[in-house]
């Protein structure tokens, strides 16, 4: 009997972990991503991007709920991407790269640890509205997947071509040995829409292509694909926030309790170095107390009008995080004199 229990233990543990994972995921917000889309000849309209399992991705009309577009690895969806075999949760972000008000780029992390990149073709029919593929493949046996949306920021250093930093962390709720990661990946074609052929030719970024960052002195090596930090048992459940070239992210250290709460720490990465910000004792993760809702995220609050404060206060849940306060002071750009002497 004892031997049977011992033999069954891994199976029971796995079943327990899966149940906990499902409960944990239920604690996280299932917020669709608002978009403005023009699919086919229809006029531009507000829509919602939603992740799921079948189909893996879909876009519905924000007003009527009518299905406008869907994508999946199996037949039945409006667009088929054969590699789309894992479901998507809330790891979705849409960008408007040409500032015309219509989103034209998606980054979507699936629950198998793969980050997808899509270019949206404004006005194309639903069967060819998106081109895309796996941009980075971090699939693993430890159960790490993407639950939190990516945090995308443009980098445009003088004299160099611009790129997107795509910051995203993994989570494996209920699996304490998953050794999650926080990745910062470089997309060197921030403003270029790839077609299907270019996506087919793309070789996904893998962990071996990335630099592993620790709390010590920054490595003096050229960064091409990006870098990552190992988080141990902590899960990344919410999007990071990038402020003035510094990525601040929160890690749920204790998993998610049945009451949907967790003990969080926050950490900061300087994108320029790259370097983890450490305190006087060399610790790079600062604990937030007390426990917060598992659905907590970074918020920015403008100061009340008429006050002397010149920064938007950053908080994670209700807890202030000074590392991501936003300096609101205006900066002079150009100047001209319009009167004639």
């Amino acid at each position: 009997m004892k031997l049977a229990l011992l033999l069954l233990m891994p199976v029971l543990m796995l079943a327990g972990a899966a149940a906990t994972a499902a409960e944990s995921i239920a604690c996280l917000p299932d917020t669709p991503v608002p978009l403005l889309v023009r699919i086919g000849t229809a006029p531009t309209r507000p829509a919602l991007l939603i992740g799921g399992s079948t189909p893996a991705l879909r876009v519905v009309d924000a007003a009527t709920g009518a299905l406008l577009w869907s994508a999946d690895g199996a037949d039945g969806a409006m667009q088929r991407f054969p590699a789309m075999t894992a479901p998507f949760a809330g790891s979705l972000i849409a960008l408007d790269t040409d500032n015309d008000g219509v989103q034209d780029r998606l980054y979507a992390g699936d629950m198998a640890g793969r980050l997808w990149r899509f270019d949206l073709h404004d006005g194309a029919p639903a069967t060819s509205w998106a081109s895309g593929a796996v941009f980075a493949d971090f699939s693993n046996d430890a159960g790490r997947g993407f639950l939190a949306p990516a945090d995308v920021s443009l980098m445009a250093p003088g004299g160099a071509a611009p790129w997107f930093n795509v910051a995203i962390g993994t989570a494996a709720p209920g699996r304490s040995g998953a050794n999650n990661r926080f990745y910062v990946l470089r997309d060197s074609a921030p403003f270029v829409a790839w077609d299907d052929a270019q996506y087919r030719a793309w070789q996904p970024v893998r962990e071996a292509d990335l630099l592993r960052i620790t709390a010590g002195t920054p490595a003096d090596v050229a960064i091409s694909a990006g870098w990552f930090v190992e988080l141990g048992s902590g899960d990344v459940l919410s999007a990071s926030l990038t402020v003035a070239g510094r990525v601040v992210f929160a890690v749920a250290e204790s998993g998610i309790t049945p009451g949907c709460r967790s003990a969080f720490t926050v950490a900061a990465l300087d994108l320029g170095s790259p370097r983890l910000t450490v305190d006087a004792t060399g610790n790079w993760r600062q604990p937030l107390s007390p426990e917060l809702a598992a659905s907590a995220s970074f918020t920015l609050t403008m100061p009340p009008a008429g006050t002397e404060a010149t920064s938007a206060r950053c908080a994670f849940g209700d807890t202030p995080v000074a590392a991501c306060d936003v300096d609101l002071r205006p900066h002079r750009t150009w100047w001209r004199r319009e009167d004639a002497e």
Partner: protein
Amino acid sequence: MRPRTEGFALLAVLAMLAVIALYTIATLREAFFGTLLAGTRLRQQSAFVLADLGIDGALQDLAAADSAAGYTRELHPVVDPQQGVTVELRPVGADALPAGFSAGRLVARRFEIHSTGHAARGARSAQVQGVVRIMPADAP
């Protein structure tokens, strides 16, 4: 019979007096225009400084504002009622992808500050300052 050169001195004196008078008039004229020019320059400088003050004031207002709304204001930073500054803050757009900041969470709002300083006797100086301010995307 008197020699024909008699009376030459008077003519010479009269000519010298005429030259001196012309020189004096020219000097006075130059002094007058110099004074006039200096006054105009002074008023122009006052107008320029007032316009500059208007831009500084608008930058301070903008740093403490909780929204990206524009405005037009009349300011009188000096006692003289003839002197003042008209400041207009114009929002001119926003960049959805400010470098170094989270896309979708923060935007770079662009403004123009049009500041016109007014001094005595209609002197004016108009300056335009371009400004960018990083703000949360959901700020009004």
